[in-house]
């Protein structure tokens, strides 16, 4: 079965690495979602709400656009 990919890309994996190799569980606990949900966001299998997106950006001290990028779908 084809995987559903969103058009929102993100730099969470890179940012976790550059912030002391933060674990998924640690970041998930700080933003109030399960580790599985954070993993789905990282893999672009789920687009988070604006609230969660802002929480993630705040943890890394980055603007939202540095964490998430929108890629328009090719027609």
């Amino acid at each position: 079965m084809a995987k559903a990919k969103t058009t929102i890309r993100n730099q969470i994996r890179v940012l976790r690495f550059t912030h002391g190799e933060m674990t998924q569980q640690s970041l998930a606990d700080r933003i109030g979602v399960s580790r599985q949900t954070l993993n789905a966001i990282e893999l672009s299998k789920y687009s988070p709400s604006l609230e969660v997106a802002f929480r993630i950006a705040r943890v890394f001290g980055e603007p939202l656009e540095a964490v998430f990028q929108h890629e328009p779908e090719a027609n």
Partner: protein
Amino acid sequence: MQPSFTEKSVWIQLVSMLVALGAYSVVAGVMLSEGVDQLAAFVPLFVVSVVFLVVLQISGHTVAAITARPESPDERDRLIRWRSESNSSWIVAIGVLGGITALVVAVDPVWIAHCLLLSLFVSQVAAYVFQLVYYRRGMQGVGGV
């Protein structure tokens, strides 16, 4: 990837429902085929099935909570549940319309009751299956597909 507690909970609910209400369906089907047409005759069987369902769900969730940290559903869990229930709600609608049609043509009440029960059962099973598919396949956010 290790499933979340909520995804495990969906598996537990799906399996317990298939076992308990599946068993009810088999026994009730045999009774109907043998000509039992009194609804009251099915009540004890239904009560036993529901108690069995509750016992299975409590046991399953207890084991899941022991083996992994229980977590409250987050926004993705809630979205998956809402979308799955939305996807499967038409099955109940068909069951209700079928029940009304059966009433109009004066079908035996025992068949109407089981038609409604079956639509509820199938709709709930479909909702669980949709949830498991969304957990594995992924899904877009509120505006996505």
